[in-house]
């Protein structure tokens, strides 16, 4: 808050300093320019004063001549004695300058006034009808200067006399100056002007430098301090602001010019001029700060008349864009293109070479537009195919896209986001399910431990009753089965939810199969099954996790031991197919397989449907989940009683 306040005070002070130095600069500059223009540089005050008096006297004389030219007679105004005394002479002939200056003029020529012949300070010459002459030639300045004749100057004299010689009557104003009687006369301001010019001549350059630097510094500082937020003043359309600036500055200049032209006192001229310069400078300052603020707020374009005019047009176009279907847009587009083509055709018809040139340009634009369209379409397409391939994190870069493509790309992104969310939800619920199953299973295990232990203790304790013995066996068998079921349930839920960390590395299947065969040798023998293992001589290596691949094979082999018809052969083959290795297990089912291959891998489904045999019915489901989790596939094929499971894994 205090910062802001300080800022405001700082700005006010800087603005005052700027305005003051601008005024000072103008004040000094006018004096310096005047001094150098009038050739008054580096002269003492007395001579400057004389020059100023001379000039004033001459301008009075010109006024007198103008009166004569305008009215044919002299009217009032110059009650200037005793400071300036003059005589008006009339002559049909050209007078010699020296004659006049030396007072050798004929008394009959004097039509008004009188001047001491020995004190003539200057002569101004004009002629009858010269105004008329000037107007027709449209060059009044030339004439008025030509007719001016100053005592110490010989310039232009000949020229004026040549011009005037064709004309009739010529008029001469001859004047003398009393340099000591200034107050209250036409020379009233001359002393001040002389002092001003002398002062400026001596100090003006320094003042200009100082005030110039000061004004530039304060200006830059103010530009820096200019706020960067838009307020009402910054919202004025810029064109209006510019017009305002032009108006104010022009008014200031007019004020100054008017003050100089009007016959007002030197003090008034000075005051009016300085006020005008101050006003102009401060207005310019405000304008500049306003402009800078617009740029700082990055709101320059937004507050121009052009922009305001464009708003309705843009709103209309936007409305059109949003509310018209792509088909309508396409029709409009083709119509516009058609008109352009028609115009081109007309050109071709009238002038072939120009038409050809236009055609080349048209084609270039057309190809560029088509490529642009294609590129955008491609981006959308690539994004779509990424999403379609399951990469739900895919995003499409929509910068510089046509609105139609953009909205399409956004829709695709939304779809993938939706899928992502659904997948995430699904994963989350699977994980929660796994957690629930695991926790519940752990809780079931505790009472089950007691059941198993006490059944075991009862068996150990022994009973003579054969019926009791039989019941105990059932209890023992069923509690063991419950134990197995719980363990499989935990594993199945983990395998299907992917909560298992796999360590995929090269695994030698040949070795693994021989290890598995060793593990199952006895169990197979017990069921009178004959394993026939066919492995290529070359050792096969696949990408898998050895431990979990063993779990898969363990499950499959356990199934084989459980469900195969005794006294048959079991075929285990390892085949290489291109980039993959296939392990197949074939056996003859003991009971009829009235079930589809798909159903078999669903949880809790068993081949016999009666659910009487051992096992949880989760073995195939676990095997399939684990295999897929390792990046392999498991296929089941049923052909009559022939049951075949094929595991496919990528080779290393």
């Amino acid at each position, binding site marked *: 808050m205090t910062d802001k306040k300080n800022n405001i005070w700082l700005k006010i002070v800087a603005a005052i300093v700027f305005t003051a130095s601008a005024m000072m600069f103008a004040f000094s500059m006018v004096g310096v320019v005047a001094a150098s223009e009038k050739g008054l540089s580096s002269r003492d005050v007395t001579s400057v004063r004389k020059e100023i008096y001379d000039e004033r006297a001459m301008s009075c004389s010109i006024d007198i001549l103008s009166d004569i030219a305008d009215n044919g007679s002299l009217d009032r105004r110059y009650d200037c004695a005793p400071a300036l005394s003059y005589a008006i002479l009339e002559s049909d002939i050209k007078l010699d300058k020296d004659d006049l200056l030396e007072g050798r003029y004929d008394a009959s020529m004097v039509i008004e006034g009188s001047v001491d012949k020995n004190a003539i300070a200057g002569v101004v010459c004009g002629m009858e009808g010269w105004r008329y002459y000037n107007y027709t030639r449209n060059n009044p300045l030339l004439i008025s200067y030509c007719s001016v004749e100053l005592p110490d100057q010989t310039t232009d004299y000949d020229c004026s006399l040549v011009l005037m010689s064709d004309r009739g009557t010529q008029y001469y104003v001859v004047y003398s100056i009393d340099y000591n009687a200034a107050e209250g006369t036409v020379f009233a301001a001359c002393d001040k002007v002389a002092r001003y010019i002398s002062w400026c001549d001596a100090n003006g350059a320094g003042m200009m430098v100082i005030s110039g630097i000061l004004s530039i510094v304060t200006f830059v500082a103010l530009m820096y301090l200019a706020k960067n937020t838009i307020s009402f003043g910054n919202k004025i359309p810029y064109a209006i602001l510019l017009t305002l600036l032009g108006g104010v500055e022009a008014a200031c200049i007019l004020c100054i010019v008017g003050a100089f032209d009007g016959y007002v006192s030197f003090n008034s001229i000075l005051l009016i001029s300085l006020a005008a310069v101050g006003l102009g400078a401060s207005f310019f300052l405000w304008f500049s700060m306003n402009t800078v603020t617009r740029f700082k707020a990055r709101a320059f374009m937004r507050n121009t008349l052009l922009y305001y005019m464009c708003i309705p047009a843009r709103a209309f176009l936007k409305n059109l864009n949003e509310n018209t279907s792509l088909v309508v847009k396409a029709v409009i587009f083709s119509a516009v293109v058609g008109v352009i083509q028609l115009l081109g055709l007309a050109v071709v018809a009238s002038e072939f070479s120009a038409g050809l040139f236009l055609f080349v340009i048209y084609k270039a634009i057309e190809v560029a537009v088509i490529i642009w369209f294609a590129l955008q379409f491609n981006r959308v397409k690539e994004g779509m195919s990424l999403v379609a391939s399951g990469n739900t994190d895919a995003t499409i870069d929509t910068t510089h896209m046509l609105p139609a493509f953009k909205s399409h790309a956004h829709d695709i992104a939304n779809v993938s986001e939706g899928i992502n969310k659904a997948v995430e939800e699904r994963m989350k619920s699977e994980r929660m399910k796994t957690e629930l199953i695991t926790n519940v*299973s752990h*809780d079931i295990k505790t009472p089950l431990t*007691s*059941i198993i232990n006490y059944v075991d203790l009862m068996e150990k304790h022994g009973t003579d009753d054969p019926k009791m013995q039989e019941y105990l066996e059932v209890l023992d068998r069923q509690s063991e089965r419950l134990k197995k079921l719980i363990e499989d349930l935990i594993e199945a839920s983990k395998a299907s939810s992917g909560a298992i960390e796999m360590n995929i590395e090269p*695994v030698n299947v040949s*070795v693994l199969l021989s290890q598995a065969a060793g593990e199952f040798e006895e169990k197979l023998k017990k069921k009178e099954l004959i394993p026939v293992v066919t492995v290529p001589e070359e050792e096969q290596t696949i990408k898998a996790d050895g431990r979990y691949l063993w779990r898969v094979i363990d499950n499959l082999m356990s199934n084989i031991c459980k469900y195969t018809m005794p006294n048959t052969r079991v075929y285990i083959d390892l085949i290489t197919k291109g980039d993959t290795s296939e392990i197949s297990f074939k056996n003859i089912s003991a009971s009829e397989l009235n079930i589809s291959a798909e159903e078999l891998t669903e949880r809790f489904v068993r081949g016999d449907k009666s659910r009487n045999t051992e096992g949880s019915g989760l073995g195939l489901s676990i095997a399939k989940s684990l295999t897929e989790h390792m990046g392999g596939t498991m296929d089941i094929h049923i052909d009559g009683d022939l049951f075949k499971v094929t595991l496919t894994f990528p080779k290393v």
Partner: protein
Amino acid sequence: MGKILVCDDEKDIVSALKIYLNSDGYEVVCAYNGMEACEKVKDGDIDLVLLDIMMPGMDGVTALSRIREMSNVPVIFLTAKGEDTDKVLGLNIGADDYVTKPFNPVELLARVRSQLRRYKMLGSAVSSSEDSGIYRHGGIELDDNIKKATVDGEDVNLTKTEYEILLCFIKNKGKVLSPKQIYKDVWHEDPYGTENTVAVHIRHLREKIEIDPANPRYIKVVWGYGYMMEE
């Protein structure tokens, strides 16, 4: 024979264990939470602890770390959590063995026996030297002079091939041996489609020296590579 502390919040399990252990001739002290178990161990004279993990109040893991501060008595964890990571965690924090619920009483008793024997044997351990033809690993001891194997101090009856395989593993502790290597080492001839033989022999060997052949302590299966005896 030994004093065993059984700690489980399930009273029925504790009394069942008590019956088993008593029938095997052990003296049994009961505790029903971690705090109690720690106090009983502090009182001294305990030879082995059977400790449940999930108990109200102080759980088994905390109790074990307390027990380890004052004693190196063998501790067997007894828990319903059967995942591999749980087992590794249990063994890492200082348990000597791990039995998952629901457990097989026979297996549990075998593990208790094994732990007790090793604990007691530590004091009278004969210096092991391969020069003298005696090889040791964990509870396994092979006397190569008379080709005799003992596990936890009990004689094990091995065939000549099984003995040779076991010796081969002990000599190559910490190395994964492929069936081919083992075959060459034991049979002294190149294998030709006979890798299954090695697998069968190893399974037999495991059945003789392991308490639970499906979860071997000594001869581990590295699926797809071979077999290994961990150091």
